[in-house]
């Protein structure tokens, strides 16, 4: 260790200590001079500025991105809303000002002060919102009394406007005010307290694109809080616009066809997974959520037995019923349990153990092969096929076909459905699998649960010869000038676990459902367009063997759900559809006609866009 004991050593190092000391003297001199400069030379000026507290920030809200349908029809834009705000520091005398204001607006004094109390001391000089979205009449009154109302301002805020009330409400979603946890999470750097963020649907999933960036002014204000001078400005950045894959006119058609029924319709483009329609009924008005939904309206929505707040296309799980026979047929063919020509005899029931499993046709279908069995939806044929394939192999094919797992659509709350296996039952119920249960599974009853979107993705894959697509919601993201910033490419998630040859057999069966002489959906034929599909009638409530019910006597809630899944044209499909009507009874009578109308509307005139609405005022400045 270096020990200083020689004088020569001390000499050279002594200068360095003196140097260090001089540096400190110099820097402190600079700091002191700066203080003199601020406090003595400019002191008067700063004292004046501090007395009026007149340098403030005024925020400029950015406008959120717009949403268009696939043909550039505007679905969501922003309108100016007028908010009544107060700056406490300027509103003097406060009590008189608020009383005067209460008289003009017709609100009680207490209502107006409530938001002030909530804000606390943090916001003494920041504008506080007293009343959101006031009417133009009230706006005129306030403007006229401007000079009697010190510290009261009108702020123009761009506010979300859902143009087509209730249309695709579940798909598009809505906004809600950001909460404290989300603000603290750091995930929303451009959002401030009081701002809204996407809460549901595309508004939520594409928040990062839609959200803009706030700007602001640094301003000097007078004693009454009115702006005298803008010192500095940071321009806001608008959010990006979205072009959806959804077809507005088709969506509206689907919603009107659903009408008062509870249920869902999903239509996909089989060539790329584009979501042409995603309708869920009953719907709700997204405009009700702007500025916070009233608790009365929220309660009404929540307590509605039709579950309007659920997107039934992805959140509701139903037994797939006879639509599932398509899977059973594929599994049977692939596992070589049956082939194109193997036949079973249907006497109207299948005896298994000492129990009779009935066919829906009590008189029996006689001898039929797999194509006939699909066309006529014979239960007995599929009981036997399923029994030979076994529950676990069936589950493997169902899984491979996209059932029992998420489709990967970019929406939150998607449900995976359920495809049972023997291991699953052991785990869930601590009971072994019963062979009889395999029979129920084979015709899509029992534990099986699927969402309408899963069925649409599956039937679309059958139609396009085996490709499973991730449903695509947004085609492109563009800027306010319409320049494309980002295209979203179709995304293949897998292929059906079936050979082209076996798929062709199943496709023939699906075609005969509509076009065969005994097809269950033969009544929906359209001139010139071949439709391939499958009906289904899902039991809500299990009947004991041999028990008879007269449906009309049952309460509507016990009636069966009606399914129809299809694609068209059969040879080169352009659209694939899944329809479910809750308590619609028969797939052929309740669900299939909905699909037919949509196919008719889409294929008659598929590529001609409906009138393109040009909204130059769409981005509110």
């Amino acid at each position: 260790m270096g020990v200083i004991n020689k004088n020569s050593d001390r000499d050279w190092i002594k200068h360095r200590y003196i140097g260090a000391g001089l540096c400190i003297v110099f820097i402190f001199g600079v700091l002191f001079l700066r203080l003199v400069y601020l406090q003595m030379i400019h002191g008067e000026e700063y004292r004046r500025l501090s007395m009026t507290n007149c340098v403030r920030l005024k925020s400029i809200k950015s406008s959120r991105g717009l949403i268009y349908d696939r043909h550039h029809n505007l679905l969501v834009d922003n309108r100016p809303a007028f908010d009544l705000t107060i700056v406490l520091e300027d509103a003097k005398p406060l009590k008189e000002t608020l009383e005067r204001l209460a008289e003009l607006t017709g609100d009680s004094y207490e209502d107006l002060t409530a938001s002030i109390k909530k804000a606390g001391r943090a916001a003494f000089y920041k504008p506080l919102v007293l009343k959101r979205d006031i009417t133009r009449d009230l706006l005129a009154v306030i403007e006229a009394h401007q000079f009697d109302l010190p510290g009261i301002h009108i702020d123009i805020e761009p506010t979300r406007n859902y143009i087509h009330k209730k249309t695709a409400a579940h798909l598009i979603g809505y906004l809600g005010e950001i909460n404290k946890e989300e603000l603290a999470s750091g995930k929303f750097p451009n959002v401030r307290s009081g701002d809204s963020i996407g809460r549901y649907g595309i508004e939520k999933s594409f928040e990062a694109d839609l959200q803009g960036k706030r700007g602001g002014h640094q301003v000097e204000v007078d004693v009454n809080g009115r702006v005298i001078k803008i010192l500095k400005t940071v321009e806001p950045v608008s959010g990006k616009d979205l072009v959806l894959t959804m077809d507005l006119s088709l969506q509206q058609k689907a919603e009107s066809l659903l009408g008062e029924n509870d249920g869902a319709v999903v239509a996909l483009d089989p060539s790329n997974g584009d979501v042409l329609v995603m309708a869920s009924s009953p719907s709700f008005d997204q405009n009700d959520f702007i500025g916070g939904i009233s608790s009365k309206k929220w309660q009404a929505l929540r307590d509605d037995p039709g579950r309007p707040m659920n997107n039934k296309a992805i959140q509701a799980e139903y037994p797939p019923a006879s639509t599932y026979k398509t899977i059973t047929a594929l599994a049977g063919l692939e596992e070589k349990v049956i082939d194109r020509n193997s036949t079973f005899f249907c006497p109207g029931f299948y005896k298994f153990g000492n129990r009779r499993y009935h066919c829906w046709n009590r008189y029996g279908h006689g001898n039929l092969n797999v194509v006939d069995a699909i066309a006529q939806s014979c239960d007995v044929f599929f009981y036997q096929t399923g029994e030979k394939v076994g529950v676990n192999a069936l589950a493997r094919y169902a899984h491979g076909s996209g059932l029992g797992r998420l489709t990967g659509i970019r929406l939150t709350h998607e449900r995976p459905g359920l495809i049972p296996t023997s291991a699953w039952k052991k785990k869930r119920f601590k009971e072994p699998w019963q062979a009889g249960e395999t029979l129920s599974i084979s015709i899509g009853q029992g534990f099986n649960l699927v969402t309408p979107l899963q069925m649409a993705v599956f039937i679309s894959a059958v139609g396009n010869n085996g490709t499973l697509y991730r449903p695509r919601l947004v085609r492109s993201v563009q800027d306010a000038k319409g320049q494309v910033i980002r295209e979203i490419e179709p995304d293949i998630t897998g292929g059906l676990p079936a050979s082209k040859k076996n798929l062709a057999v199943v496709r023939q069966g699906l075609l005969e459902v509509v076009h065969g002489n005994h097809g269950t959906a033969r009544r929906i034929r359209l001139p010139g367009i071949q439709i391939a599909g499958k009906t289904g009638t899902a039991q809500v409530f299990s009947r004991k063997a041999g028990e008879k019910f007269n449906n009309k006597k049952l309460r509507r809630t016990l009636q069966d759900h009606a399914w129809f899944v299809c694609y068209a044209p059969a040879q080169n499909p352009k659209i694939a559809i899944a329809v479910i009507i809750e308590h619609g009874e028969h797939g052929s009578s309740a669900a299939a006609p909905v699909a037919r109308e949509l196919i008719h509307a889409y294929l008659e005139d598929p590529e001609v866009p409906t009138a393109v609405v040009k909204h130059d005022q769409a981005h509110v400045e």
Partner: protein
Amino acid sequence: MFDRRLVSNFDWGFLLVIFFICILGLTILYSAVTAGYAGTDLHPLFKRQVVWLAVGFVIMMGCLVIDFKEFAKLHFLIYAACVGLLVATWLVGHTGGGSQRWLVLGPVRIQTSELMKISLIISLASVFADSISPEGLGFRHLIKPAILCIIPFGLIFIQPDLGTGLLLLLIAGCLTIFVKVEKKVLFILGGAGLSLVPLVWFFGLKDYQKDRILTFLNPERDPLGAGYHIIQSKIAIGSGMLTGKGFLHGTQNALNFLPEQHTDFILSVLAEEWGLLGCAVLLTLYFLLLFLGVNISYNCRNMFGSLLAMGITIMIFWQIFINVGMVMGLMPVVGVPLPLVSYGGSSVVTNMVGFGILLNISMRKFNTA
């Protein structure tokens, strides 16, 4: 065995200066947190700061017990422990304000980068004490110190806390220059550094990173954020004029114009309420503190002790200069607290450890064994 010289050499003046700064600091903090506070009790932040200062005094006294020369022997162990804490912070640290800086141990949150400063100074002082010479340090003498700096800098940089990271390098750099570097080496390193800046600027950085650095250097670029705070801070300071608006009568303070008035911007509260006179008193106290620090360093007969004292003095100097400069609009906006005045436990404890070491060195300055 107890040496009587330990008491006679104890630097009572230094302790007195620390004591006065604490008293002044608490007075300002009281005003900063009480403005607009509704409770009748003392503000909880004020109470907590009193506790921290008391804890700090105990820790400072604790630093007197062991002969500082033991630190030289243990320096690598201390260094390794602090790096370990930084790694732990990186792995399991508490995230606040977008960066992961705190390690939570029971009821206390430790800002580990603060401890690292002291530890690095001890290590550098120890390394330099062996290599110091009138001719200055050559390249080969600088390899070890460079490695010692770069590890903690990297770990603090990824938190990310660029401000503290750069402060660490600044302290290390100043200590190195104090020790004396060969002219040749100084020119080469300086030249290399300067020529690297444009390279990194044009090829190494993305636009948003450049933007952040420019805003850091010039807060006016961000008129709604840092720039606005600086304007409000300057208004607060300037409006204090010669004698101030009086204790608890600051209007800028009362209206919460500044976001961090009890931490980084606390000087503006003093300037507003006590004016130029109040600021002059605080600056004088700080000047005395640094002067006594240099004095301790100068008088120490042990090279390690002398460099350690100088390093700690440099650390305190930069904190004061950066904070005061920032609040007055002379320096970039960095989150560096004002020693013993800003609210905050980690800062109080680190500074008290530093003062303890300085006092320790002053006590044992003749003890060269």
